[in-house]
């Protein structure tokens, strides 16, 4: 079964487009080896999209409370609690944390869900990403490439440590 790569965020809202940019990078390089889903808003669609899927990678922008612009947070979406910056920025009815919880409650989560959150700052209309955020998109794409090619699903530090997309320890796990 192909891995599913999901981007959240809006291409025309500046840094919020970091998810779609990462998806574009991966789509170019992995082509038909993966399934891709760009989701600009309605996260309830994710429940059906990832049901029965073995491996899901999801990329989203985080608001500034989660760290410094361009920081990358990598989370096990089924076991770790999302940072506040991911859980509260949704403007689309349900947020990602709720979608995951609902999915678990209804018995339909994917087998593995890795979330890459990239700290952003500017969500105003526009198509230009901050350089640090854009660099983080490339770093995350590289990390997912390695994870898929390596088949382990584990982040590779050399990719993660590529500056300026900086690695941030996830502290709010439980």
């Amino acid at each position: 079964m192909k891995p599913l790569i999901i981007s959240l965020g809006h291409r025309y809202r500046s840094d919020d487009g970091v998810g779609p940019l990462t998806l574009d990078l991966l789509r170019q390089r992995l082509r038909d080896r993966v399934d891709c889903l760009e989701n600009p808003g309605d996260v309830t669609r994710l429940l059906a999209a990832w049901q029965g899927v073995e491996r899901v990678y999801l990329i989203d922008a985080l608001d500034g409370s989660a760290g410094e612009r361009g920081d990358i947070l990598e989370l096990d979406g089924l076991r770790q609690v999302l940072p506040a910056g991911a859980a509260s920025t949704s403007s689309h009815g349900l947020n990602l944390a709720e979608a995951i919880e609902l999915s678990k409650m209804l018995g339909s989560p994917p087998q593995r869900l890795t979330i890459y959150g990239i700290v952003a700052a500017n969500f105003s209309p526009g198509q230009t990403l901050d350089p640090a955020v854009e660099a983080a998109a490339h770093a995350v794409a590289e990390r997912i490439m390695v994870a898929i090619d390596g088949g382990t699903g584990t982040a590779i530090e050399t990719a993660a440590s590529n500056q300026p997309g900086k690695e941030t320890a996830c502290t709010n796990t439980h």
Partner: protein
Amino acid sequence: MTSTRVIKVDYLARVEGEGALFVQYDDAGVHDVKLKIFEPPRFFEAFLRGRDYREAPDITARICGICPVAYQMSAIHAMENALGIEPTPELAALRRLLYCGEWIESHALHIFMLHAPDFLGYESAVAMARDHPGIVERGLELKKAGNAIVSLLGGREVHPINVRVGGFYRVPEARELQPLRQQLQRGRDAAIDTVRWVSTLPCPKFQRQQQHDYEFVALQHPDEYPMNRGRIVSTAGLDIAVWDYDVTFEEQHVQHTNALHSVIRQRGAYFVGPMARYNLNFDRLTALTRDMAADIGFPPFCRNPFQSIIVRSLEVLHAFDEALQLLDHYRKPDQPWTEETPAASTGYAATEAPRGLLYHRYSLDETGTITDAKIVPPTSQNQKTIEDDLRLMIPRYLSMAEEQLRSRCEQAIRNYDPCISCATHFLQLHLEKRS
């Protein structure tokens, strides 16, 4: 002696998008209601200038992740109006089928995930799912059926890529549509169950006094429940062609919000959306939908905005029923699209987005380059009515505890399923009580 109490909700959940609301009231009444929208979609209107007319459907679809079909349809019809194109009946039917898909997915999202928790006293759909998993699963099933229609006709679930000025890039063979049938039949059964279920929800009683009665505004067409075409009519006797929209309606700048308030000139606020469509077009619903309304004892005219959840459920049923009829009578169009020639012109269109009337106007130069664009989304048109509802509603609920009152205000806003993301960011609710 007076003292001031403040109820503040930083983030109003379960609305599409972001904004802010400020309400100041005391025992004598409501003194101030401000629905603040920080960011109207003028970015898109400016963004469209200088672009080719054929790009408008795909660009405007990006205004909203919930109702992209509505933006595409209004853009396409406005361009066709500008260029003198009339879609063939077969293409018009396919567009209605696509629109049915969007109504189903948007309404199902709102009914089950955003609005129902209000009526049952849950803070979210997740909390509601703990006690009512079957209900939430039904909502997701309905939504999935809507997604399937949009995906099949539009090429993908979100921001469809298969629609174009003049028609579609590709039209399906009849056999390609048949796999939808079983899913839509199941969906129609689930929609019937949904109508019955929402009719049992405890619903706040609210009806405006006659002097404050709503003016409902919707499209009306002699042959069909309104989606893509018709005249703009109202319960106060308005009856105009779409190209007279700018003559009849006016956008006003209001200091507390960046979004323009839409009003009817010399009259004021009006109400668009499912209740307006229903009240003005009840006899154009499918027979099954009208029978279901009768079956639950729901009248053909509704003035209580809290019952909008029932109207939405009836529109979901209508959309499934009509979608199945469209499948039954599908004839593949001879040509996927009608060719057009650019010309210096101006085109107008209004279609019925899930949340209500969506007006587009474009001017083109002789090469087809857009020189001017105007987009009026339904939430902008309902802004003033939402404020008026709160102004009229709160005095009736002053005996409520503050927390309960705040929840009631949020529920009242959600009656309109505001798609503030079409125009803004998040909604913050700020209630200030002076007593």
